[in-house]
């Protein structure tokens, strides 16, 4: 249209100038007012920042409307062009809002992704810390396990030691039992030809002189030796004891003779017992002569009882003794 006008005669141009001067006060159409307002709005808003190229196109459209307004204020052309320009501006603004919205969403999505990564990172860190603690606990358990193994081994060693001690003890006990058994048997055998009595702590074995010696002899009879072997066995069965062999006579001969005879007889018995294995240091011989009768010397029977050999068995204090 504007081209058409420009191609018309100078007369028309003149007329138009006149018209313009005449209409200089004609206000812009509602459409142009609306378009201008929309443009001001758009230029101050997101559209200028986010959709500069599209906004420039809308500006061109608005300029076209402005030219139409200058050419012919209030014309239908101005109205149409302004109408179109306003729609274009509104369209650009709608596009700008969409872009802004998309950007916002993208930012939110990125923030979420970042937070997620951060959360994963701290989760990983917590897991690592837990792994570390686990490793530490495992190490402590291993150490404790080693200590327990050592203690178990020590306990086993102690246990087998105790078992060995127990066994040793049992053996000792059995030996002792066997020894006591032998002693009991020996004592039983002894009682067939000897009398036994207790004198305070001592055991006194009394052997009748007639079973050991011929009259006035200090040499043991052959039959006496078998009996004294039983005595030796009984003595050896007793532990921690000392023995005193005492010789006794009746009162028929002189004191000095009886003293010598009783001493000689006691020594014969002692020597025989030593030959049978009784420790020499544990046994001594003493002659008592006729000084300690156990019966009257007035009768034959009494005198026979007084002719005797006594063996005093004294238990030694176990703490100070050593055989």
């Amino acid at each position: 249209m504007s081209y058409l006008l420009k191609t018309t005669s100078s007369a028309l141009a003149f007329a138009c100038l006149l018209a313009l001067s005449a209409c200089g006060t004609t206000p812009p159409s509602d459409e142009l007012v609306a378009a201008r307002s929309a443009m001001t709005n758009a230029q101050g808003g997101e559209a200028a920042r986010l959709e500069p190229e599209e906004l420039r196109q809308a500006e061109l459209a608005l300029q076209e409307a402005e030219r139409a307004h200058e050419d012919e204020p209030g014309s239908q052309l101005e109205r149409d062009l302004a109408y179109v320009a306003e729609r274009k501006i509104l369209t650009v603004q709608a596009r700008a809002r969409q872009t802004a919205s998309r950007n916002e969403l993208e930012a939110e999505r990125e923030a979420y992704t970042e937070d997620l990564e951060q959360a994963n990172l701290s989760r990983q860190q917590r897991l690592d810390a837990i792994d570390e603690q686990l490793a530490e606990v495992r190490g402590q358990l291993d150490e404790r396990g080693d200590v327990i193994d050592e203690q178990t081994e020590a306990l086993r060693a102690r246990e087998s030691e105790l078992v060995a001690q127990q066994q040793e003890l049992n053996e000792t006990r059995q030996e002792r039992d066997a020894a006591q058994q032998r002693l009991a048997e020996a004592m039983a055998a002894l009682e067939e030809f000897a009398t036994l009595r207790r004198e305070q702590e001592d055991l006194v074995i009394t052997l009748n002189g007639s079973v050991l010696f011929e009259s006035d002899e200090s040499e043991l009879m052959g039959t006496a030796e078998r009996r004294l072997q039983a005595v030796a066995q009984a003595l050896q069965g007793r532990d921690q004891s000392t023995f005193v062999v005492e010789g006794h006579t009746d009162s028929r001969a002189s004191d000095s003779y009886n003293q010598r005879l009783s001493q000689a007889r006691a020594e014969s018995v002692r020597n025989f017992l030593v030959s049978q294995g009784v420790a020499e240091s544990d046994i001594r011989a003493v002659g008592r002569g006729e000084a300690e009768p156990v019966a009257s010397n007035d009768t034959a029977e009494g005198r026979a009882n007084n002719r005797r050999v006594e063996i005093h068995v004294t238990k030694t204090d176990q703490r100070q003794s050593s055989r």
Partner: protein
Amino acid sequence: MNIDQVRQLLRGALTPVAATSLIGLGACATGSVNQAQMTETQAAIRGAQEVGADDAPQAALHLQYAKEQLADAETIADDDPERANRLLMRAESDAELAIALAEEAELRTEAEETRNRIREEREQHL
């Protein structure tokens, strides 16, 4: 110079112009409306319908304007093809605005969904 004199002057000057204008209009009229513009406008209206402009109130309003102006343009196409062409331009600009508003409305819905999804994921994972 009063207004009457101006009118007098204009009328005298415009006589030959009116003639040439009529010839020009006649030339336009013989070509009728700009078919390219017609096609563009119709395409824009179809586009607006396709993106759901009928479902978004603001977009629906401008789609309505576009349709009415297209109808007006068709009505006067033979009598005033020049005006009809500008009506087509107006109709197209309304249709384009309707498209932008419809897409904005759709984006708003999508954004809401996306935000909800992000919120859910946050609650689930953070």
